C-alpha cells in the first residue's frame, strides 16, 4: 500500500504543459508569483486569472486536483482574511460590538485571499505537470552558474533525487518497525504529548540506524558504478530548449507586460470615459 504513494503529486497526462522544459515551468512559476505582487488593482488580477485559466486548460489536469492543494492552506487563508478584515483601520462599514469591518479591510482581505489562492494554484500546476526527477534536473541546470562560486549544485540535485527515491522505502521501513514494536507491546497512541513523543524513540532509533546503513551501502554501490561527482558526467536525458519553450517564454513576457499595463491603464481609461 505504501509503495503506491506518488511523490510530488504528479498527474500523468499528455499536454503541451507537460512537455515543456522543466526550467520554463520553474521560471514561469517564479515570475507568476512575483507578478501577483506587482500587479495593481482588479484589472491586474483579472489578467492573472485569465493567464492561470489558460495554463490550466492547456495542462489537461482536472481543476479539482488544484483545489486539493488549497485544502492544506485553508486554515492559513482564513486567519489572514479575518485579521485583515477586522484589524485594518479606515472607513467603518459594519460595526458589531467591539469589532469593526472597514472598507479598506474588505479590500485588503479580498486581495490577499486572491493572491494566496493564485499562488497555491499556480505552483500546484507546476508540481502536477512535472515529475520530481525533471524538477531536480531543471534545478540543477538552472543553478549551474552558481558552480562558479563553489556551490555544489550537482551534489545538491543528486541528494534531492536520492532522497526522493528513498522516501517510499523508508516509509515502508517505518511501517515495519512500528509493527515490530507494537508486537512487543509498544504504545504509540495513548498519553499526553510528551509521552507520545517519548514513545517515538523506539521507532526513530532503529529507523535512523537502518537509514545510515542504507546510505553506506548506497554510497558503495554508487562508487562501484564509477560515480565521482558531476565532472565528466554525461546525461541520459539532457535538457534542451525546443521551439515550444521559446514560445512559452514569449507568452510569459507578454503576460507580464499586459498585466502591468492593465493594472495601470484600464482604471485611468475608465476614469477618462466617466468624466
Amino acid at each position, binding site marked *: 500500500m505504501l509503495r503506491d504513494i506518488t511523490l510530488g503529486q504528479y498527474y500523468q497526462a499528455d499536454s503541451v504543459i507537460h512537455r515543456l522544459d522543466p526550467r520554463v515551468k520553474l521560471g514561469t512559476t517564479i515570475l507568476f508569483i512575483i507578478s501577483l505582487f506587482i500587479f495593481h488593482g482588479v484589472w491586474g488580477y483579472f489578467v492573472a486569472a485569465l493567464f492561470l485559466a489558460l495554463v490550466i486548460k492547456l495542462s489537461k489536469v482536472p481543476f479539482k486536483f488544484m483545489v486539493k492543494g488549497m485544502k492544506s492552506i485553508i486554515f492559513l487563508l482564513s486567519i489572514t482574511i479575518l485579521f485583515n478584515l477586522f484589524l485594518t483601520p479606515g472607513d467603518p462599514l459594519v460595526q458589531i460590538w467591539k469589532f469593526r469591518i472597514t472598507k479598506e479591510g474588505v479590500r485588503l482581505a479580498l486581495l490577499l485571499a486572491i493572491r494566496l489562492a493564485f499562488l497555491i494554484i499556480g505552483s500546484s500546476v507546476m508540481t502536477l505537470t512535472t515529475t520530481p526527477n525533471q524538477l531536480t534536473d531543471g534545478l540543477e541546470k538552472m543553478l549551474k552558474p552558481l558552480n562558479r562560486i563553489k556551490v555544489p549544485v550537482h551534489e545538491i540535485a543528486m541528494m534531492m533525487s536520492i532522497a526522493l527515491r528513498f522516501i517510499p522505502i523508508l516509509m515502508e521501513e517505518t511501517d515495519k518497525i512500528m509493527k515490530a514494536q507494537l508486537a512487543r507491546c509498544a504504545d504509540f497512541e495513548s498519553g499526553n504529548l510528551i509521552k507520545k513523543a517519548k514513545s517515538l524513540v523506539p521507532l526513530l532509533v532503529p529507523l535512523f540506524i537502518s537509514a545510515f546503513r542504507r546510505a553506506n*551501502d*548506497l554510497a558503495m554501490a554508487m*562508487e562501484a558504478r564509477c560515480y565521482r561527482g558531476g565532472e565528466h558526467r554525461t546525461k*541520459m536525458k539532457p535538457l534542451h530548449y525546443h521551439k515550444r519553450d521559446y514560445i512559452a517564454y514569449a507568452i510569459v513576457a507578454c503576460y507580464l507586460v499586459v498585466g502591468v499595463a492593465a493594472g495601470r491603464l484600464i482604471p485611468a481609461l475608465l476614469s477618462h470615459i466617466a468624466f
Partner: protein
Amino acid sequence: MSLIKVRDLIYEYIRRDEEGNVEGITTAVDDVNLDIKQGDFVAILGHNGSGKSTLAKHLNAILYPTEGTVWVDGKDTKDETYVWDIRQTAGMVFQNPDNQIIGQVVEEDVGFGPENMGVPTQEIWERVEESLKAVGMYSFRKFSPNKLSGGQKQRVSIAGVIAMHPKCIVLDEPTAMLDPMGRKEVIRAVRALNDVEQITVILITHYMEEVIYADRVYVMDKGKVTLQGTPREVFSEVERLKELRLDVPQVTLLAHELAKEGFPMPKGVLTKQEFREALDRYRTERADKYANYFG
C-alpha cells in the same frame, strides 16, 4: 593471461573500542590466491564470516589489500590511477537490491553507470536498451523500482552493471534476500550472460544449488580457500563440506548416503538427471545379472 589474478592476498580489519584504541586485528582474508580466466563462471562459497564478501570487494577496488596484490585485467588495484578502469572492468552487484538502485525509473538507473563514465547520450540509450533486454526487463523500463519484485530489482541491478560493458561481474550474494522464484530468475540471467556474452562471472553465495553450473568452485573458511575444483570435485567431499558447515545439494547428499551404505553410486552427483541415470544403470546391471542365471 588471466583476467583476475590474486596473489598472497591478506586483508586485516582493525577492531577499535569506543576510545579508538586498537582492540585486536581480525584477518578477514588470509593468503588467498586466485586465477580467473576471461569467460569463466566461478563460484565462491562459504558460510557467514568466511571472508568471501571481503574478497569480492577487493576485485572492484572498494577495499585494498593489506598485503599481497590483486590484478584486474593486468592492472594493480592499489594503483589509484586505474581505480575507475578497474571498477568499469569488474562490475559489482550487491546483496540488497533496494540499496543499490539509484534511479527513480528503471531505465534511468541502468543509465547511471554509463552517465558516470561520460558515454555520449545516444550511446547511453543504446546500452540501456541492450542491457535491459539481456536480463529480460525491457518491458519494465518505465517502471518505478519500488513496484518491482526482489528478483526483478536484482536483474535491474545486473543490467545497470552490464550497461558499463564490463569484462567481469562480481555478484556478492545477489540472491540472499530473494524468494526461491526470484533466486531462479537472477541465476538464469547470470548464466545467460555468461553463455551469450562470454562475461566472466564471479558468484559469491551460500546456496549450493547455484554453484553446480560453475566452471570452478572455491570454498572459503576463516579467510582461507580450503577447497577448490570443479563442482563435481568439490561436492564429492561431502564430509569435508559438512565440517565447514556448508550444505550440499539434496541430490548429492542422498547419493552420498546411498554410497556410504554400499549402494553403487558414483561420486559427486549434482543433478536429479544424473541421479536417475545412475539408478537406471544399476537396475539394468542387476537385471543383466539375473538374466545370466536364467537366460
